[in-house]
Protein backbone atom coordinates (compact mmCIF):
# COMPACT_ATOMS: atom_id res chain seq x y z
CA UNK A 1 0.00 0.00 0.00
CA UNK A 2 2.82 2.33 0.98
CA UNK A 3 4.62 1.50 -2.26
CA UNK A 4 1.52 2.35 -4.32
CA UNK A 5 1.04 5.66 -2.53
CA UNK A 6 4.67 6.65 -3.06
CA UNK A 7 4.41 5.80 -6.76
CA UNK A 8 1.17 7.76 -7.20
CA UNK A 9 2.80 10.80 -5.58
CA UNK A 10 5.92 10.33 -7.73
CA UNK A 11 3.85 10.15 -10.94
CA UNK A 12 1.87 13.25 -9.90
CA UNK A 13 5.09 15.13 -9.18
CA UNK A 14 6.59 14.07 -12.51
CA UNK A 15 3.51 15.42 -14.31
CA UNK A 16 3.89 18.75 -12.49
CA UNK A 17 7.60 18.86 -13.25
CA UNK A 18 6.95 18.18 -16.91
CA UNK A 19 4.26 20.83 -17.36
CA UNK A 20 5.71 23.62 -15.20
CA UNK A 21 9.48 23.19 -14.86
CA UNK A 22 10.78 21.40 -17.94
CA UNK A 23 8.85 23.73 -20.29
CA UNK A 24 11.67 26.23 -19.74
CA UNK A 25 14.25 23.77 -21.04
CA UNK A 26 12.43 22.66 -24.18
CA UNK A 27 14.39 22.28 -27.40
CA UNK A 28 12.28 23.50 -30.35
CA UNK A 29 9.19 22.92 -28.24
CA UNK A 30 9.96 19.37 -27.23
CA UNK A 31 9.76 18.50 -23.55
CA UNK A 32 10.76 15.02 -22.35
CA UNK A 33 7.80 12.94 -21.23
CA UNK A 34 9.04 11.80 -17.84
CA UNK A 35 6.01 9.63 -17.08
CA UNK A 36 6.31 7.78 -20.39
CA UNK A 37 10.03 7.19 -19.79
CA UNK A 38 9.33 5.85 -16.28
CA UNK A 39 6.53 3.57 -17.52
CA UNK A 40 8.69 2.15 -20.32
CA UNK A 41 11.64 1.50 -17.99
CA UNK A 42 9.40 0.04 -15.28
CA UNK A 43 7.72 -2.40 -17.66
CA UNK A 44 11.02 -3.34 -19.28
CA UNK A 45 12.61 -4.38 -16.03
CA UNK A 46 9.60 -5.77 -14.19
CA UNK A 47 9.00 -9.50 -13.85
CA UNK A 48 6.43 -10.55 -16.42
CA UNK A 49 4.08 -12.06 -13.83
CA UNK A 50 3.80 -8.71 -12.01
CA UNK A 51 1.25 -6.17 -13.20
CA UNK A 52 2.41 -3.20 -11.17
CA UNK A 53 3.85 -1.60 -14.30
CA UNK A 54 0.46 -1.72 -15.97
CA UNK A 55 -1.34 -0.08 -13.04
CA UNK A 56 1.41 2.56 -12.97
CA UNK A 57 0.78 3.21 -16.65
CA UNK A 58 -2.93 3.80 -15.97
CA UNK A 59 -2.24 6.17 -13.06
CA UNK A 60 0.49 8.00 -15.01
CA UNK A 61 -1.83 8.28 -17.99
CA UNK A 62 -4.50 9.76 -15.75
CA UNK A 63 -2.14 12.51 -14.53
CA UNK A 64 -1.05 13.27 -18.10
CA UNK A 65 -4.73 13.55 -19.08
CA UNK A 66 -5.40 15.94 -16.21
CA UNK A 67 -2.67 18.32 -17.37
CA UNK A 68 -3.47 18.10 -21.07
CA UNK A 69 -6.32 19.43 -23.12
CA UNK A 70 -7.43 16.02 -24.30
CA UNK A 71 -10.37 14.09 -22.85
CA UNK A 72 -9.57 11.91 -19.84
CA UNK A 73 -8.65 8.48 -21.12
CA UNK A 74 -6.40 9.46 -24.03
CA UNK A 75 -3.08 9.02 -22.25
CA UNK A 76 -4.47 6.24 -20.03
CA UNK A 77 -5.09 4.29 -23.24
CA UNK A 78 -1.73 5.15 -24.82
CA UNK A 79 0.33 4.31 -21.74
CA UNK A 80 -1.80 1.22 -21.01
CA UNK A 81 -1.23 -0.13 -24.52
CA UNK A 82 2.49 0.71 -24.28
CA UNK A 83 2.80 -1.23 -21.01
CA UNK A 84 0.86 -4.24 -22.34
CA UNK A 85 2.89 -4.24 -25.56
CA UNK A 86 6.24 -4.13 -23.72
CA UNK A 87 5.15 -6.93 -21.36
CA UNK A 88 3.89 -9.09 -24.23
CA UNK A 89 6.99 -8.47 -26.37
CA UNK A 90 9.47 -9.15 -23.58
CA UNK A 91 7.62 -12.24 -22.32
CA UNK A 92 7.53 -13.85 -25.75
CA UNK A 93 10.53 -12.64 -27.67
CA UNK A 94 13.25 -11.27 -25.38
CA UNK A 95 15.56 -12.97 -22.93
CA UNK A 96 17.84 -10.75 -20.90
CA UNK A 97 20.33 -12.89 -18.93
CA UNK A 98 20.68 -10.71 -15.84
CA UNK A 99 16.95 -10.14 -15.38
CA UNK A 100 15.01 -12.88 -13.71
CA UNK A 101 11.89 -13.83 -15.66
CA UNK A 102 9.05 -15.85 -14.23
Amino acid at each position, binding site marked *: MKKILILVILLYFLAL*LQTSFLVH*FSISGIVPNLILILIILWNLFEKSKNYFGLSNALVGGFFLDIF*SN*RPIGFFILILGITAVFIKFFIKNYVRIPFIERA
Partner: protein
Amino acid sequence: MKFSSKKRRFIILIVIVVLIIVLLNLFQKEVKGFFYYISCPIQKSLWGAGDRVSDFFESFFRIKSLKKETDELKLKNQELLSQITVLQEQKEENKVLREALGIELQKEFKLALAQIISKDISQDFILIDKGLEDGISENMPVITQQRVLLGKVSEVYKNFSKVMLIFNKKSSFDATIQREKSEISGVVKGKGNFRVSFDFISQEKDISKEDIVVTSALGRIFPEGLLVGQIEKIKKSDVEPFQELEVKPFFDIKDIEGLFIITEY
Protein backbone atom coordinates in the same frame (compact mmCIF):
# COMPACT_ATOMS: atom_id res chain seq x y z
CA MET B 1 -18.08 -19.62 -24.25
CA LYS B 2 -16.15 -20.25 -21.03
CA PHE B 3 -13.55 -17.92 -19.59
CA SER B 4 -10.82 -18.90 -17.20
CA SER B 5 -10.87 -17.06 -13.87
CA LYS B 6 -7.73 -15.10 -14.89
CA LYS B 7 -9.35 -13.93 -18.13
CA ARG B 8 -12.59 -13.10 -16.32
CA ARG B 9 -10.73 -10.99 -13.80
CA PHE B 10 -8.93 -9.20 -16.62
CA ILE B 11 -12.21 -8.43 -18.42
CA ILE B 12 -13.80 -7.18 -15.17
CA LEU B 13 -10.77 -4.94 -14.62
CA ILE B 14 -11.07 -3.48 -18.13
CA VAL B 15 -14.81 -2.84 -17.65
CA ILE B 16 -14.13 -1.09 -14.32
CA VAL B 17 -11.38 1.07 -15.87
CA VAL B 18 -13.67 2.03 -18.79
CA LEU B 19 -16.50 2.89 -16.39
CA ILE B 20 -14.18 5.05 -14.27
CA ILE B 21 -12.93 6.85 -17.42
CA VAL B 22 -16.51 7.52 -18.59
CA LEU B 23 -17.43 8.83 -15.14
CA LEU B 24 -14.32 11.03 -14.99
CA ASN B 25 -15.17 12.47 -18.39
CA LEU B 26 -18.71 13.28 -17.29
CA PHE B 27 -17.27 15.33 -14.41
CA GLN B 28 -14.17 16.40 -16.33
CA LYS B 29 -14.38 20.09 -15.42
CA GLU B 30 -14.77 19.36 -11.71
CA VAL B 31 -12.02 16.73 -11.67
CA LYS B 32 -9.53 18.87 -13.62
CA GLY B 33 -10.51 21.97 -11.60
CA PHE B 34 -9.82 20.10 -8.36
CA PHE B 35 -6.38 18.96 -9.50
CA TYR B 36 -5.49 22.44 -10.81
CA TYR B 37 -6.57 23.89 -7.47
CA ILE B 38 -4.37 21.60 -5.37
CA SER B 39 -1.45 21.81 -7.83
CA CYS B 40 -1.51 25.57 -8.34
CA PRO B 41 0.92 26.57 -5.52
CA ILE B 42 3.45 23.86 -6.47
CA GLN B 43 3.15 24.63 -10.19
CA LYS B 44 3.60 28.36 -9.63
CA SER B 45 6.82 27.79 -7.70
CA LEU B 46 8.02 25.22 -10.24
CA TRP B 47 7.34 27.68 -13.09
CA GLY B 48 9.29 30.40 -11.26
CA ALA B 49 12.17 28.05 -10.46
CA GLY B 50 12.29 26.82 -14.07
CA ASP B 51 12.38 30.39 -15.29
CA ARG B 52 15.27 31.33 -13.01
CA VAL B 53 17.32 28.18 -13.69
CA SER B 54 16.90 28.44 -17.48
CA ASP B 55 17.85 32.14 -17.37
CA PHE B 56 21.00 31.24 -15.43
CA PHE B 57 22.09 28.56 -17.90
CA GLU B 58 21.11 30.62 -20.92
CA SER B 59 23.43 33.41 -19.81
CA PHE B 60 26.36 30.95 -19.99
CA PHE B 61 25.50 29.67 -23.44
CA ARG B 62 24.75 33.07 -24.93
CA ILE B 63 27.65 35.03 -23.53
CA LYS B 64 29.34 35.23 -26.96
CA SER B 65 26.33 36.44 -28.87
CA LEU B 66 25.24 38.85 -26.14
CA LYS B 67 27.71 41.59 -27.05
CA LYS B 68 26.67 41.54 -30.68
CA GLU B 69 23.03 41.55 -29.66
CA THR B 70 23.56 44.49 -27.28
CA ASP B 71 25.17 46.54 -30.03
CA GLU B 72 22.30 45.76 -32.38
CA LEU B 73 19.76 46.65 -29.72
CA LYS B 74 21.50 49.94 -28.96
CA LEU B 75 21.30 50.84 -32.62
CA LYS B 76 17.66 49.79 -32.81
CA ASN B 77 16.94 51.76 -29.66
CA GLN B 78 18.34 54.93 -31.21
CA GLU B 79 16.21 54.37 -34.26
CA LEU B 80 13.08 53.79 -32.17
CA LEU B 81 13.74 56.83 -29.98
CA SER B 82 13.80 59.04 -33.04
CA GLN B 83 10.57 57.41 -34.23
CA ILE B 84 8.94 58.04 -30.85
CA THR B 85 9.65 61.76 -31.10
CA VAL B 86 8.06 61.87 -34.54
CA LEU B 87 5.07 59.83 -33.34
CA GLN B 88 4.58 62.03 -30.27
CA GLU B 89 4.41 65.06 -32.49
CA GLN B 90 1.87 63.26 -34.68
CA LYS B 91 -0.12 62.19 -31.59
CA GLU B 92 -0.45 65.78 -30.48
CA GLU B 93 -1.44 66.82 -33.97
CA ASN B 94 -3.92 63.93 -34.15
CA LYS B 95 -5.45 64.93 -30.80
CA VAL B 96 -5.95 68.51 -31.95
CA LEU B 97 -7.51 67.33 -35.21
CA ARG B 98 -9.81 64.83 -33.42
CA GLU B 99 -10.98 67.59 -31.07
CA ALA B 100 -11.59 69.85 -34.01
CA LEU B 101 -13.59 67.17 -35.85
CA GLY B 102 -15.35 65.90 -32.72
CA ILE B 103 -14.17 62.26 -33.01
CA GLU B 104 -13.69 60.33 -29.78
CA LEU B 105 -10.43 58.54 -29.10
CA GLN B 106 -10.39 54.75 -29.37
CA LYS B 107 -11.40 53.20 -26.07
CA GLU B 108 -8.64 51.42 -24.15
CA PHE B 109 -9.01 47.77 -23.22
CA LYS B 110 -10.18 46.52 -19.85
CA LEU B 111 -7.54 44.09 -18.68
CA ALA B 112 -7.15 41.37 -16.08
CA LEU B 113 -3.65 40.34 -15.00
CA ALA B 114 -2.88 36.61 -14.91
CA GLN B 115 0.06 34.28 -14.43
CA ILE B 116 0.98 31.12 -16.31
CA ILE B 117 0.80 27.98 -14.20
CA SER B 118 1.65 25.30 -16.73
CA LYS B 119 1.88 24.39 -20.39
CA ASP B 120 -0.04 21.57 -21.96
CA ILE B 121 1.82 18.32 -22.50
CA SER B 122 1.07 17.74 -26.14
CA GLN B 123 -0.78 20.70 -27.58
CA ASP B 124 -0.40 24.44 -27.67
CA PHE B 125 -2.35 25.38 -24.58
CA ILE B 126 -1.36 27.09 -21.34
CA LEU B 127 -3.09 27.17 -17.98
CA ILE B 128 -3.51 30.52 -16.24
CA ASP B 129 -4.56 31.40 -12.70
CA LYS B 130 -7.73 33.38 -13.49
CA GLY B 131 -11.16 31.89 -14.08
CA LEU B 132 -14.92 32.32 -13.83
CA GLU B 133 -14.68 33.98 -10.42
CA ASP B 134 -12.45 36.71 -11.90
CA GLY B 135 -14.91 37.47 -14.68
CA ILE B 136 -13.11 35.51 -17.38
CA SER B 137 -15.17 33.92 -20.13
CA GLU B 138 -14.43 31.93 -23.26
CA ASN B 139 -12.92 33.56 -26.37
CA MET B 140 -11.40 36.50 -24.50
CA PRO B 141 -8.08 37.56 -26.11
CA VAL B 142 -4.87 37.07 -24.11
CA ILE B 143 -1.90 39.40 -24.62
CA THR B 144 1.50 40.16 -23.10
CA GLN B 145 2.56 43.45 -21.53
CA GLN B 146 3.90 44.53 -24.94
CA ARG B 147 0.47 44.06 -26.62
CA VAL B 148 1.66 40.86 -28.28
CA LEU B 149 -1.16 38.43 -28.96
CA LEU B 150 -0.80 35.04 -27.25
CA GLY B 151 -4.15 33.48 -28.06
CA LYS B 152 -7.64 33.26 -26.65
CA VAL B 153 -9.33 31.70 -23.64
CA SER B 154 -10.68 28.33 -24.72
CA GLU B 155 -11.89 26.74 -21.50
CA VAL B 156 -12.86 28.37 -18.21
CA TYR B 157 -12.78 26.72 -14.78
CA LYS B 158 -13.74 28.25 -11.45
CA ASN B 159 -10.29 29.70 -10.70
CA PHE B 160 -8.36 28.74 -13.82
CA SER B 161 -8.57 29.07 -17.58
CA LYS B 162 -7.01 27.35 -20.53
CA VAL B 163 -5.58 29.55 -23.25
CA MET B 164 -5.30 28.28 -26.81
CA LEU B 165 -2.08 29.74 -28.21
CA ILE B 166 -1.91 31.08 -31.76
CA PHE B 167 0.32 28.10 -32.71
CA ASN B 168 -2.57 25.69 -32.21
CA LYS B 169 -3.88 24.14 -35.42
CA LYS B 170 -7.43 25.19 -34.55
CA SER B 171 -6.41 28.84 -34.23
CA SER B 172 -7.11 31.16 -37.16
CA PHE B 173 -7.94 34.86 -37.33
CA ASP B 174 -7.77 37.88 -39.64
CA ALA B 175 -4.62 39.95 -39.67
CA THR B 176 -2.93 42.65 -41.71
CA ILE B 177 0.46 43.98 -42.62
CA GLN B 178 0.44 47.71 -42.08
CA ARG B 179 1.96 49.85 -44.80
CA GLU B 180 2.19 53.60 -45.07
CA LYS B 181 -0.30 53.85 -47.92
CA SER B 182 -2.05 50.49 -47.97
CA GLU B 183 -2.57 47.39 -45.92
CA ILE B 184 -2.35 43.71 -46.87
CA SER B 185 -5.01 41.52 -45.30
CA GLY B 186 -4.81 37.78 -44.77
CA VAL B 187 -5.50 35.01 -42.30
CA VAL B 188 -3.09 33.90 -39.58
CA LYS B 189 -3.27 30.16 -38.99
CA GLY B 190 -1.62 28.01 -36.36
CA LYS B 191 0.50 25.19 -37.75
CA GLY B 192 1.34 23.50 -34.45
CA ASN B 193 4.81 23.04 -32.99
CA PHE B 194 5.42 26.79 -32.49
CA ARG B 195 4.75 27.67 -36.13
CA VAL B 196 2.31 30.20 -37.53
CA SER B 197 1.47 30.96 -41.16
CA PHE B 198 -0.01 34.01 -42.88
CA ASP B 199 -2.32 32.76 -45.62
CA PHE B 200 -4.39 34.07 -48.55
CA ILE B 201 -1.85 36.62 -49.74
CA SER B 202 -1.83 36.72 -53.53
CA GLN B 203 1.43 36.20 -55.44
CA GLU B 204 1.64 39.77 -56.73
CA LYS B 205 1.68 41.33 -53.25
CA ASP B 206 5.15 42.47 -52.30
CA ILE B 207 6.04 41.12 -48.86
CA SER B 208 9.42 41.47 -47.19
CA LYS B 209 10.96 39.63 -44.26
CA GLU B 210 10.84 42.62 -41.95
CA ASP B 211 7.06 43.07 -42.28
CA ILE B 212 5.07 43.02 -39.06
CA VAL B 213 1.73 41.25 -38.84
CA VAL B 214 -0.96 42.76 -36.61
CA THR B 215 -4.53 41.68 -35.87
CA SER B 216 -7.41 43.25 -37.74
CA ALA B 217 -10.96 43.78 -36.56
CA LEU B 218 -12.36 42.04 -39.63
CA GLY B 219 -13.24 38.68 -38.08
CA ARG B 220 -14.19 40.26 -34.76
CA ILE B 221 -12.18 37.62 -32.94
CA PHE B 222 -9.49 39.95 -31.66
CA PRO B 223 -9.31 43.74 -31.27
CA GLU B 224 -7.43 45.66 -33.93
CA GLY B 225 -3.69 46.37 -33.75
CA LEU B 226 -2.38 43.58 -31.52
CA LEU B 227 1.10 42.44 -32.52
CA VAL B 228 1.26 38.91 -33.93
CA GLY B 229 4.77 38.47 -35.32
CA GLN B 230 7.27 39.15 -38.05
CA ILE B 231 7.41 37.51 -41.46
CA GLU B 232 10.16 34.89 -41.34
CA LYS B 233 9.89 32.81 -44.52
CA ILE B 234 8.48 33.71 -47.91
CA LYS B 235 7.81 31.07 -50.54
CA LYS B 236 6.45 32.09 -53.93
CA SER B 237 5.29 29.66 -56.55
CA ASP B 238 3.78 30.27 -59.99
CA VAL B 239 1.51 27.26 -59.61
CA GLU B 240 -0.09 28.28 -56.33
CA PRO B 241 -2.57 31.17 -56.18
CA PHE B 242 -1.23 32.38 -52.83
CA GLN B 243 2.18 32.93 -51.25
CA GLU B 244 3.39 30.68 -48.46
CA LEU B 245 4.37 32.93 -45.57
CA GLU B 246 5.64 31.86 -42.21
CA VAL B 247 5.38 34.21 -39.26
CA LYS B 248 7.72 34.25 -36.28
CA PRO B 249 5.60 35.14 -33.24
CA PHE B 250 6.86 37.93 -31.01
CA PHE B 251 6.66 35.87 -27.83
CA ASP B 252 8.43 32.90 -26.35
CA ILE B 253 6.38 31.04 -23.79
CA LYS B 254 9.49 30.58 -21.64
CA ASP B 255 10.05 34.32 -21.26
CA ILE B 256 6.55 35.45 -20.37
CA GLU B 257 6.17 36.56 -16.78
CA GLY B 258 2.74 38.12 -16.62
CA LEU B 259 -0.02 38.25 -19.19
CA PHE B 260 -3.25 40.12 -19.62
CA ILE B 261 -6.72 38.98 -20.55
CA ILE B 262 -8.73 41.58 -22.45
CA THR B 263 -12.09 41.45 -20.70
CA GLU B 264 -13.67 44.34 -22.65
CA TYR B 265 -12.77 46.06 -25.89
